[in-house]
């Protein structure tokens, strides 16, 4: 699933925004989390977000092609934060990063919980933060205890 970014490339002051890619084993999960995160990021400028869910053939799994396409689609030159769900999605992104030329330069696999991290990443990126700040915000979602 290669969602077109929902808003233009740049923030209000013309700064380039960090893109966010959401990789899930399920196309529906990836698309829904993208919808949730952009919905909660609310009004104003939205960072480009793309979902890369499922195996690309309607099944559960991870597609390196969908991931590469999604990363290219959200790249505005300010870096791309990639969030993943389960093990093989993590391994696929790491393998693509190791390939060197499969993902835009400045693409980073972010260590974060998928849903909470996605919301934090999209909100932070939409505010015009840089990649390190987007990564830190997403990772910080791990520290929020529910009980």
């Amino acid at each position, binding site marked *: 699933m290669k969602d077109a970014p929902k808003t233009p490339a740049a923030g209000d002051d013309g700064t380039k925004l960090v893109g966010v890619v959401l990789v899930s084993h399920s196309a529906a999960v990836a698309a829904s989390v993208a919808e949730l995160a952009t919905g909660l990021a609310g009004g104003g400028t939205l960072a480009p977000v793309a979902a890369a869910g499922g195996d690309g053939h309607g099944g559960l*799994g*991870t597609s390196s092609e969908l991931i590469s396409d999604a990363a290219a689609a959200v790249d505005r030159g300010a870096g791309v934060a990639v969030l993943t769900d389960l*093990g093989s999605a993590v*391994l*696929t992104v790491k393998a693509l990063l*190791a390939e060197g030329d499969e993902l835009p330069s400045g693409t980073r696999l972010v260590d974060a919980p998928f849903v909470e991290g996605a919301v934090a990443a999209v909100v932070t990126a939409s505010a015009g933060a840089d990649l390190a700040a987007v990564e830190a915000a997403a990772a910080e979602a791990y520290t929020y205890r529910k009980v």
Partner: protein
Amino acid sequence: MLDADFFRRWMTATAVSVEHEAERLTALDSPIGDADHGSNLQRGFRAVATALDKEEPGTPGAVLILAGRTLISTVGGASGPLYGTLLRRTGKALGDAAEVDEREFAEALRTGVDAVSQLGGAAPGDKTMIDALVPAVDALGRSFAAARSAAEEGALATTPLQARKGRASYLGERSVGHQDPGATSSAILIAALAETAGE
């Protein structure tokens, strides 16, 4: 000396073995995994055979890099990036040489196995493909046949282990008593290597 043709034949032999063993791999993957290991590898190695036919890479390194890249892009499960990384890193370690000797290949394969271990964070005893690949690479210094035996023994020895990586790790003690599918497919890869070498 081992040339590009040797490595093409190794990949083709692996594809053939994976076709034969796909059902067994999937059966091993059904109690402790998501029952797709055989079909995933089948799809991946079919694509490898096709890609090698079409592109005809000319060096051992190029054969393995193309095979690895193809696995990463076609498999869709964890075995894609893991086997893809194994072959690609091995291929990169071989460089541009038109032929490599067995010792150079053994060293390159160790680089590949180390990369897989790092990618998945798995060590020997975690009930993964590493349990077949590490003993195989250790034995490769002696002969291809020794590597095959070591990989098979390593795969069998995963049965009593408790999984600490991947989906099987969620099962805790219930993963005990099942042979690891990834170690089994790794033994198939190494057996195809020995077969290609005529051992």
